[in-house]
């Protein structure tokens, strides 16, 4: 019997299936457009000119100082997105990125303020501290899931709140904060040592954080792990079908423990760029909600390291350019959060619809192609 299949060659076209790409891009683009439309409506209803507002944002986003700030912010969001996405790739909902991030940066700030080693030891030490703390905190949820069957969604929500309390407990004068501080009203750790400062690049638009290279490295490692390593294959297999993964020999329990810990370790790094490049201490001014923004960024970027890069840039651009709105035209900055929220809601719906449509479409296509092949074979037989 001869095979009806084409020869074993992957053409350029099969790698870059136009329709597949179109489908993949359609969802986020539509979501962003829909969200812009909704926000325009909201602005218009409140008596503001939406085009002018977007103009303010775009002008700032295209100016060099805006771009540098956007990149700095995107660095943070990218790490947060990767932290959430790592769990999502195997259907683990690490809602606890928030808590892991706060504890990670708190411990790093404390260690950085107590230890003063040469930079090439000091900085890795702080990174490892943050990752270790974040990873351990996340592992509590992993252990509870594997050994007690507790849903990681609930346990990480609880752990977020407990992390807040732990931060409150540790960040007291005499503990992680210096016993005597200059300002009695502000409780914060002592600044990290000079040697902890991460390198940065001076540009025309301001200081670009060198940590962006660490973020890129995380992304590259993430992508590499996912697509090029056995571990990554097991991770994706578990995410797609836990039963099939188990039958294939994946040790699902160990995978849950590992990915929870890795997700938490990445989460531990979220606060590091701010700590080592800008504020140099941990205090009550720490940005809240980064964990949840990370989850949103991951959802928008469809949990792929490349997608997350785009969504982190988009979210960072919205946040950074949003700060200009009240300054240049009296628009409330909060419109940006509305836009981010609508993008997330629209995009998750769009992805789901596209996923279902894509599956059906491919089934039809395969059926049609096989029928065509069969018909061609029959013709040949007749001819011969």
């Amino acid at each position, binding site marked *: 019997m001869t095979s009806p299949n084409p020869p074993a060659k992957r053409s350029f076209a099969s790698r870059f299936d136009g329709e597949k790409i179109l489908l993949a891009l359609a969802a986020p683009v539509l979501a962003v457009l829909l969200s812009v439309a909704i926000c325009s409506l909201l602005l218009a209803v409140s008596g503001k000119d939406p085009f002018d507002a977007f103009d303010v944002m775009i002008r700032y986003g295209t100016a060099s100082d805006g771009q540098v700030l956007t990149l700095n912010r995107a660095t943070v969001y990218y790490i947060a997105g990767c932290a959430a996405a790592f769990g999502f790739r195997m259907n683990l909902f690490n809602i606890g990125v928030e808590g892991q991030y706060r504890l990670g940066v708190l411990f790093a700030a404390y260690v950085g303020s107590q230890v003063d080693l040469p930079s090439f030891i000091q900085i890795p030490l702080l990174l490892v501290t943050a990752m270790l703390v974040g990873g351990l905190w996340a592992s509590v949820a992993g252990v509870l899931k594997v050994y007690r069957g507790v849903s990681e969604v609930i346990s990480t*929500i609880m752990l977020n709140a407990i992390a807040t*309390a732990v931060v409150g407990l540790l960040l007291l004068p005499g503990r992680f904060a210096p016993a005597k501080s200059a300002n009695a009203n502000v409780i914060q750790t002592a600044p990290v040592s000079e040697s902890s400062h991460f390198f940065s690049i001076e540009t025309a638009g301001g200081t670009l954080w060198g940590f962006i290279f660490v973020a890129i490295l995380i992304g590259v490692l993430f992508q590499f792990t996912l697509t090029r390593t056995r571990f990554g294959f097991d991770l994706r297999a578990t995410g797609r079908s836990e039963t099939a993964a188990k039958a294939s020999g994946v040790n699902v329990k160990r995978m849950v423990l590992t990915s929870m810990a890795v997700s938490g370790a990445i989460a531990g790094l979220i606060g590091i760029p701010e700590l080592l490049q800008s504020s140099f201490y941990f205090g009550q001014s720490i940005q809240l909600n980064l964990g949840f923004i990370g989850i949103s960024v991951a959802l928008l970027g469809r949990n792929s390291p490349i997608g997350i890069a785009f969504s982190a840039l988009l979210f960072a651009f919205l946040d950074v350019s949003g700060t200009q709105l009240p300054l240049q035209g009296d628009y409330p900055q*909060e419109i*940006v*959060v509305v836009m981010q929220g609508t993008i*997330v*809601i629209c995009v998750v*719906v769009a992805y789901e619809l596209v996923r279902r449509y894509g599956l059906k479409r491919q089934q039809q296509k395969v059926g049609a192609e096989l029928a065509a092949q069969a018909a061609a074979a029959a013709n040949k037989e007749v001819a011969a």
Partner: protein
Amino acid sequence: MSTATTARPKTPGAPTKKPKITWPVVLLLIAGALVLVSAVGAATDNHGLTASGQITAALGAAVPIAMAGLGGLWSERAGVVNIGLEGMMVAGTFCGAWGGFLVSPWFGLLAGMAGGALGGLLHALVTVTFGVDHIVSGVGINLLIPGICAYVNRIYYRDYVADGAGANQSPPADALPSITVPGLSDWLKDIENHHWFLVSDVAGIVGGVVTNLSVVILIAAALIVASYFLLWRTVFGLRLRSCGENPTAAETLGVNVYKYKYFAVIASGAFAGLAGAYLSLVAAHFYKDGQTQGRGFIGLAAMIFGNWMPGGLAIGAGLFGFTDSLQLRDADNVHVLLLVIALAMGLLAMWHGYRRKYTAAVISLVVGGGLGLWFALTDSVERPLIVATPYVITLVVLALASQRLRPPKADGQIYRKGEGK
């Protein structure tokens, strides 16, 4: 011939069953706890735990937790996990304050519920109609709704600065009435001040209930009872719960699963909205950004603690409300509470020992001893520890008693009509 079945001995109420927690047991436990608290109060001469003011504060703190939890209960009983409760609560705080400022606080309560219900509608649309993962939708809602509320607040109250509006704060609304039973309240207060063993403690608790009681607390209590009857005693409730247990079975019996899921999630939003409106109309008299402070999540915790049942939820909310209110009150009270828990753990250890569960007994004894030492060696308990208590309790309950917990079987699963096996 069928008498020879070996695999199926039919003894009604098989002896292997786990003992279930029944209401008499619960009441007995509460009575025991009361005696214990009284004894400790008498011994340490600190009666703060059962002071009427403490009880009033605890009840007040319990309301938003209970209502958020009730919202979670409705939604999860129909099989939809709702971690968007927090966002729906924010909608409630905003709409409540808005209605309260513009019309009246009573209208505010309704407006808050309506606002929350809109959030619920969105969650239902995304999860039920479009089949998106429930957690994902909830995260999105928690991001979106606070953003909208903050935005609208800024735009809308711009011209009301004279009325007390701030950049992130709405102008104040009028207060809702609260109830003090005349005579009884004073009489109980009198007894309470005598510090008689047990009698004064009971008087303090009853006094707390009859003094300065917001009407919303009564409404909330009524809603919990009503929810129980609606969900467990009516056709509507049976059908709604069947959607959370086995939607495919419900579908084959002619139940419109989508309809009940929609209804449950919208109701869930309305309860969360009421919880929010309570915060912005009773606990405070205005809306403020970030007012909910994660109470939606504590509500979820209370629901889990209460095993997805209204009665259990009420106890959970009461417990968590009590700890929530402790942080605002005298730190000594919390310190005394340590001793109470230490003694309770000691009693638990004796019970375990009596039932010959020696490992459990030893663990209880060690925990109790640790707490006792903590009490002896310190003078106060730090605030963050009190804040974290509800979450720690929930985690411990989940970790130790998860086989006793009974979430709805199809909870969190995506249901598509006609695709069941």
